[in-house]
């Protein structure tokens, strides 16, 4: 039989191993995607244009193309801090991080998708993996006011949020998922993938039907801006940054099914009305990539599409920034 003391020492050995595992996870995830974005911010303190958004902006905004089109010197050009699979909460945190670390942008280009400006941000602890790990890295207590969690998940978050094995568990799980996918692919035709994942999966992020989207747009047209979005615009306004809100380029099917509806037009008009106090300029770029071959999956621009988008927005802002509001 094992004695109580031996059991205690065995548990202590386990605790040391778990501590070592935490150090291992922290080391292996030191260059996770959100950390790379943060690092990019630190390297770009002289940037005068800040691009923010989710993966649509991460894939679509090319700094050198924009700088060249906007006739900006590289050192004082644009920095793209867009983060794939991020919500407006992470985008707000990245803006705050950039401002806190010496970036003084004159212009913020903020790309949005569908109804993200109005939808309340809700998470479960299960969702908070991958790039959402930024919610653990940057001002976790401050950010909590902008998204809701169940009581159980909130407790879990408050207890474990600074433990590497918890905050970066998604980075470990994704490796297993990639392995699982490669094993499941054996003997089957290769599926198209890109920097964000399996290309076909992104159609799952589109609204289920035109009717559902119409209803959601109609409802959203009665809502204020989501709190993190309003806060992002407020803080940018306070820092004297001109904000340009960009309705991101979409494929023909997305535009015809969702954006060419009365409800969407009403919604975007409503959003523009809400933006007046922040002097935000609105650019409808949804049809800038009219050819579907400029997309590499149902949502994200290809490299060629990104070049066209970045060039056009650069030219637009270099021309007469004050007149951006009504240009489409």
């Amino acid at each position, binding site marked *: 039989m094992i004695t109580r003391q031996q059991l205690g020492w065995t548990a202590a050995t386990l605790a040391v*191993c778990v501590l070592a595992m935490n150090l291992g996870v922290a080391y292996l995830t030191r260059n996770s*995607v959100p950390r790379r974005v943060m690092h990019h911010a630190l390297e770009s303190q002289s940037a005068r244009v800040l691009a923010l958004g989710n993966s649509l902006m991460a894939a679509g905004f090319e700094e050198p193309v924009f700088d060249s089109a906007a006739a900006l010197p590289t050192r004082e050009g644009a920095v793209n801090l867009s983060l794939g699979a991020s919500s407006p909460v992470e985008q707000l945190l990245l803006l705050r991080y950039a401002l806190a670390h010496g970036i003084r942008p004159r212009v913020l280009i903020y790309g949005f998708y569908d109804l993200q400006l109005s939808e309340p941000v809700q998470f479960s602890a*299960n969702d908070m993996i991958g790039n959402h790990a930024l919610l653990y890295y940057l001002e976790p207590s401050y950010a909590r006011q902008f998204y809701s969690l169940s009581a159980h998940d909130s407790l879990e978050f408050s207890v474990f949020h600074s433990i590497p094995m918890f905050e970066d568990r998604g980075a470990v799980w994704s490796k297993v998922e990639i392995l699982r996918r490669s094993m499941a692919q054996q003997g089957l035709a290769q599926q198209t993938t890109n920097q964000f*994942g399996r290309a076909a999966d992104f159609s799952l992020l589109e609204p289920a039907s035109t009717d559902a989207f119409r209803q959601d747009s109609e409802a959203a047209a009665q809502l204020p801006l989501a709190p993190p979005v309003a806060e992002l615009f407020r803080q940018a306004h306070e820092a004297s940054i001109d904000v340009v809100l960009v309705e991101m380029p979409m494929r023909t099917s997305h535009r015809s099914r969702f954006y060419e509806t009365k409800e969407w037009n009403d919604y975007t008009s409503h959003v523009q009305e809400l933006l007046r106090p922040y002097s935000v300029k609105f650019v409808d770029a949804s049809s800038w990539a009219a050819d579907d071959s400029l997309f590499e999956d149902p949502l994200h621009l290809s490299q060629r599409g990104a070049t066209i988008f970045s060039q056009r927005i650069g030219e637009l802002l270099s021309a007469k920034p004050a007149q951006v509001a009504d240009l489409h």
Partner: protein
Amino acid sequence: MAQLLWVQHVLEYIAGEIDSPPDGFPVRLTNIVFWGLWWAALAAIIYIFSGQSSKFIYIDF
């Protein structure tokens, strides 16, 4: 057959099913380092594979 039976006993022993190791298995219950490492290995395996219910659409992290 005897070897298979021995492996079965080893597995039962390290899984906690039986308290005594089979003849020839050197690790006793008093070997705290082995059992600490064994539990840590099990914890690591559970940790690594516990994300399978997560829905991965984005996987660029």
